[in-house]
């Protein structure tokens, strides 16, 4: 274990180096460019054994990853925003073929208007593709999560996206602890694919036409396997904690035991909110935080148990569903709580789109307002667009 200073992008590239995948196919896009740029240096310097495939688009990048993964390789790539959007078609193909590809992603808004900064629209737009999703709060977690996600992906044959917040984490240097190369290799182990297109002794057909007769069964089987991801994740996260001393639950609770109200959010904002909670506690205000880290598959029972104990919860969503009903975390959380025996009053704050700074004062305001909801026993405003000019 050693202590180093790295940005989120550097931390993710470093984890990729230690994983030493067989194939990386990638196309650059701000703010994720550095990840593969740094990784390609590792390739050029002979520090990894990876076959690096420079392609002409993200569609091609993930397509090349699909080919390499079908051939039985350990495969990774990196992208952001429009890049993930261009991969969209292939996301489903990778997941449907049960290919445990891992994407080191930086969350950036989707155009238009064009913008390079953080929100979660890109990955939230890929929720139904059959990929595990982990949202990281800092560089340390981004490094750790790539290693955890790779192992979970390979054990479950479910691909994974691990993401950080654009610039806030991707380009911010922080102090972090990293494992030794051998420790990472021992932890992830050798990848033994269930099938390989290069296994000439056992020839197989991959990706054939599948019509009304069997498509549905195969999809159902995929959904069934997807439901096992959380269990595998919990086991692998525990193993990783034993190795590193750092434990990352799928759903994290912070100072929630005696709390009346909580914020439910993800990414770097959740980290900042912990500091806010500490300040509120010093004032004697019983407030907590629940952090959404895994959003696919949804940790349904965990969310029900965690949020059910509060009088009121404010969801903070860094994207919108365009459903005229707030953000995706709010919508899905409402669905999860529908049949809960005890459920909180639930409001939504859509915030930080296009990288709008979220300050401590903004988070304090949300706590103040959710406290007011408890006092009144009712919600005045279901969905708030936090700090938008002309609205408030």
């Amino acid at each position, binding site marked *: 274990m050693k202590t180093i200073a790295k940005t989120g992008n550097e931390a993710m590239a470093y984890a990729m180096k230690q994983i030493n995948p067989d194939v990386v196919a990638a196309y650059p896009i701000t703010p994720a460019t550095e990840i593969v740029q740094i990784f390609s240096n590792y390739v050029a310097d002979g520090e990894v054994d990876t076959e690096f495939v420079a392609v002409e688009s993200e569609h091609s990048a993930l397509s090349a990853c699909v080919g390499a993964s079908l051939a039985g390789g350990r495969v990774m790539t990196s992208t952001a925003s429009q890049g993930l959007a261009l991969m969209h078609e292939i996301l489903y193909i990778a997941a449907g073929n049960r290919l445990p590809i891992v994407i080191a992603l930086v969350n950036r808004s989707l155009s238009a208007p064009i913008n390079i900064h953080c929100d979660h629209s890109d990955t939230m737009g890929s929720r139904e593709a059959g990929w595990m999703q982990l949202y990281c709060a*800092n560089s340390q977690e981004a490094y750790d999560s790539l290693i955890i996600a790779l192992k979970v992906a390979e054990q479950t044959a479910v691909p994974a996206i691990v993401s950080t917040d654009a610039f806030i984490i991707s380009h911010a240097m922080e102090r972090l602890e990293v494992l030794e190369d051998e420790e990472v290799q021992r932890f992830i182990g050798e990848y033994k694919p269930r099938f390989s297109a290069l296994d000439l002794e056992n020839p197989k057909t991959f990706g054939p036409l599948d019509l009304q007769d069997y498509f549905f069964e195969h999809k159902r089987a995929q959904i069934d396997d997807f439901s096992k991801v959380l269990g595998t994740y919990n086991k692998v996260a525990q193993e990783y904690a034993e190795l590193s001393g750092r434990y990352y639950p799928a759903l994290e609770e912070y100072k929630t035991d005696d709390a009346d109200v909580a914020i439910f959010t993800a990414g770097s904002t959740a980290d900042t909110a912990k500091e806010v909670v500490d300040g509120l506690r010093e004032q004697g205000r019983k407030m907590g935080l629940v952090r959404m880290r895994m959003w696919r598959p949804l940790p349904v029972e965990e969310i029900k148990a965690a949020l059910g104990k509060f009088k009121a919860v404010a969801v903070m969503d860094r994207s919108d569903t365009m459903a005229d009903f707030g953000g995706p975390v709010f919508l899905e959380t409402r669905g999860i709580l529908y049949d809960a025996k005890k459920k909180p009053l639930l409001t939504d704050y859509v915030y930080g789109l296009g990288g709008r700074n979220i300050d401590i004062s903004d988070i304090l305001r949300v706590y103040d307002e959710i406290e007011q909801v408890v006092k009144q026993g009712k919600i005045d405003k279901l969905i708030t667009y936090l700090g938008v000019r002309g609205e408030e």
Partner: protein
Amino acid sequence: MQQYFEVRWHGRGGQGAKTAALLFGEAAMETGKYIQAFPEYGPERTGAPVKAYNRLSDGPIRIHTQVINPDVVVVLDASLLESINVTEGLKDNGALIVNTQEKAAAIKEKLRVTNAKVAVVDATKIAVEILKKNVPNTVMLGAMVKITGVLEWDSALASIKEKLEVKFRGRTEIIEGNVEAIKRAYDEVEVA
């Protein structure tokens, strides 16, 4: 809530404000601090005004917000004083450190700074004389370490030298030149 020491760097694209923030951050980490160093990205071009930040603490840093009330502001290019409000949000009893030929008292009066100290050093001159190039960013680290007192000088200098050795592998002239320039800035910085 936790106490932080926060820095804002002003420069022009290409002058190395980001590099200075990264070097300062890493040097601080070597002395046992928890650190953040991050640039502010926008539609920057060479010569356009840019900003970079540091946040230091004795414990783990969890906040990921912009720096709004810095303890120290460092200005790498004095021409920015004409167009940018560099003292915006500067904390009471904080410090403004400017790369300029002017006297500290003159800058203090010009910017009407009443709540913080102002320090100046002609980092451009030092850089041109020693490094034969207008690269004031590392030079300013010398003034920065002296004025803030937040880092121990010897270990900070050793750490910066180590980082330069990695960056300029084997180019002894550049490495030694930078170290000399940093030391000179440390000696020559003037306060009002």
